[in-house]
């Protein structure tokens, strides 16, 4: 029999790009990757503590691959493999203790396995989001038919956007929108246009944190409540999203431009042949006024 309570699944996608975090650490800023992960754990624990039916998943986004920090592949409920580590002795809810330990273990593994191969240094965010969507899909199918499951994704972004991932990113966003999955974004450093669009389209919250060190507080205040509870709270208003298109010739953001009616490519200047699909266009020029012959006045 399907239980009456709604299941809330929170997937936290953490950007653990070692280059960015390494640079941060070298500059001796207050927020280190350890502190960031601590904050994520606090959020995860709080989420699971809110209700017994809440579920959590944490995925680390790297420049090599995306790695599930929690739940682990071989982890089953009641597994005694982590017994000595899990009994933390402070009477913590066992699930939280297990989760924390697992996350810590996995991130240590991920970081130690990191190898610099030199071809790409960008975080594979689009891929990680795709994995998150697949995970959500799998989890939804595992429950009974009548069971309602509400999912959302929280992205904690550190490094800059990668322009090459644009197409994949947009596909992920639209897929999430279709599945009614919210994408929230908590941005640590530079604004990300892609995530702004993602939040706008799926109905999530986008926040760029002014104080990185208070990350935990922002996470708990803004991102812990789910979408129903958010309607009752006063949260930061949505930011204005720049939806301007970029012209195909110069990649400038334009407000008014020319669009080829055959292939829909956007140009900032008129050209008689569309360079993408090679269609010829005619445009009516305003009629040329014949210059009147000016009568030269004789100076008197």
């Amino acid at each position, binding site marked *: 029999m399907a239980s009456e309570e709604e299941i809330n699944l929170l997937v936290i996608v953490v950007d653990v790009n070692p280059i960015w975090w390494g640079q941060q650490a070298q500059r001796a800023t207050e927020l280190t990757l350890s502190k960031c992960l601590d904050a994520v754990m606090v959020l995860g624990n709080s989420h699971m503590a809110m209700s017994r039916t809440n579920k959590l998943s944490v995925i680390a986004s790297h420049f090599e691959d995306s790695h599930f920090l929690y739940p682990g592949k071989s982890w089953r409920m009641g597994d005694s493999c982590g017994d000595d580590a899990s009994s933390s002795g402070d009477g913590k809810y066992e699930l939280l203790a297990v989760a924390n330990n697992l996350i810590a273990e996995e991130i240590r593994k991920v970081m130690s396995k990191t190898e610099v191969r030199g071809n790409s240094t960008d975080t594979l965010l689009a891929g990680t989001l795709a994995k998150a969507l697949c995970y959500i899909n799998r989890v939804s199918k595992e429950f009974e038919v009548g069971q309602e499951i509400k999912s959302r994704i929280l992205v904690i972004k550190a490094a800059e956007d990668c322009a090459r991932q644009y197409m994949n990113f947009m596909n992920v966003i639209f897929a999430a929108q279709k599945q009614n999955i919210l994408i929230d974004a908590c941005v640590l450093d530079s604004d990300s246009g*892609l995530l702004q669009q993602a939040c706008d389209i799926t109905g999530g919250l986008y926040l760029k944190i002014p104080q990185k060190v208070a990350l935990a507080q922002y996470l708990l205040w803004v991102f812990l409540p789910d979408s129903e509870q958010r309607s009752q709270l006063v949260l930061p208003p949505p930011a204005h999203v720049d939806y301007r298109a970029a012209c195909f010739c110069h*990649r400038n953001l334009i407000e008014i431009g020319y669009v080829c009616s055959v292939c829909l490519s956007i140009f900032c200047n008129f050209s008689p042949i569309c360079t993408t*699909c090679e269609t010829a266009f005619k445009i009516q020029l305003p009629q040329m006024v014949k210059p009147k012959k000016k009568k030269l006045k004789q100076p008197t």
Partner: protein
Amino acid sequence: MHLIQTMAALSEEVLLVVKKVRQRKQDGTLYLMAERIAWGPEGKDRFTVSHLYADTRCQKISPDGKAKIQLQLVLHTGESTTFHFSNDSSALKDRDAAKELLQQLLPKFKKKANKELEEKNRMLQEDPVLFQLYKDLVVSQVISADEFWANRLGDTNHADPSLSNNKQEVGISGAFLADIRPQTDGCNGLRYNLTADIIESIFRTYPTVKEKYCENVPHNLTEKEFWTRFFQSHYFHRDRINTGTQDIFSECAKQDEQGLKSMVVQGVKNPLVDLLSLEDKTLDEGYGVCTTLPSTSNSNRSVKESSNSAIIKRFNHHSAMVLAAGSRKGETPANQASETSNTDGNSRDSVFFQPPVKKVKLKEAIEYEDLQRENRPKTVALNLKKSDRYAHGPVPLQSQQYTTSQDIINSVNYIQHEMVNYKPNLTQVLSSTTASSAIAALSSGGVLMQAATQQAINQMVPSEVQGELKHLYAAAGELLRHFWSCFPVNTPFMEEKVTKMKSNLERFQMTKLCPFQEKIQRQYLSTNLTGHLEEMLQTAYSKFHIWQTRRMLRKT
């Protein structure tokens, strides 16, 4: 409009001349001509008053008992001119003569002028936005009515008049005769309630009755008498026993019989419908059987059978007439004689229509539209040369921050070093000072909440102000459209128009926009509601200024 014409230059036929007619306390003569009515003062050979019949809406006369015998002409524009017939002996006769003539002439010219006005009224009634625009611009005299209608009425004058009658014609109810519902009025009489609709239905269905009506009313019979006779006659009643020719409707009955016979002779045009195969087929006794076959000779017919067949004939005829009247479009009495419809009994040329109708019916039955081969228009294949352009988002090419490979290696090593001994320290995640500063930023008035405190404009501005603003935008838009459509200025007409439009815009700004601005300022609304409107008007003014200076330069 008063045209001043010399009488000598008249080329119109003069129908009536009435002397001693005063207009505005001046003696003169009234002339009724073929297309206009005119009046000239005594002794002068010019007309000071002249009105076309087309411009006249109606005429009015002073009541009979009054001392002054007057005739008033009311024009479409609302103006009126009064003529006082002051001939001592024949004033009344003159006035009546003039009135009769006008009564005959005015209807001829009436239709032309009215149609345009009706069209305008209809457009204003149907479209509230247009009506509001009209009120804002014409009634407050920002632009003249002519300019307002210039663009809008242009098409309808050339359009097919049948297209402008978008309304469907109302059909005839088959039960209109039954709807009359006679009631007993207590003392052995019957009351028939006739409405105009029923009368119209009767006329449309039975053209012969209409003919009789036109012949007899109002010369021989009053309307009431006509209808009384109609209901009394056997033509109306169930049993049509032709009792003699005193009844004016006996002719109608005969014509109906003939019509019915010719209808039967024609048969049905649809080759797929075979009416003759429909017969009462008897199976056995009790299954609708009739033991003796009905014979067609009149002598063997029982009274009941003949009355049955008579009423069936009446029903069939009535239904056929109703259908025929419905398919006849409009009142065209002249055409009824030569009508080619083959559903009523009076058509003659229906034989010519046989082959095409049959063909059409057969074709309809054997062909199905969906099963035909599709004729899609030919399309051109899409040929993309550089499809990778679509993969770029609106992320402009930015100069990336280049990190040297050494930097990268250093960073990675550093972080690996940091995370090798990572242990979550969840009790030391946040200090209370950082937490409270974060909370302050997130509370109302905080750094992150600035945008939330701004209320939406539409919640702050009252709805009448919003409504007024919308009307202002509609009116300004209309004026600006007229203004901008004048460019490029090619003809002197355009020059004139552009100058006029500019003055219209200025007048609009003064009479409508400025009072509105003052009003909202008085209400302490700090939002700038009219900024955009002013910007649009300023752009128009500067364009006009540029055009004007260029024109002056060209002239010099």
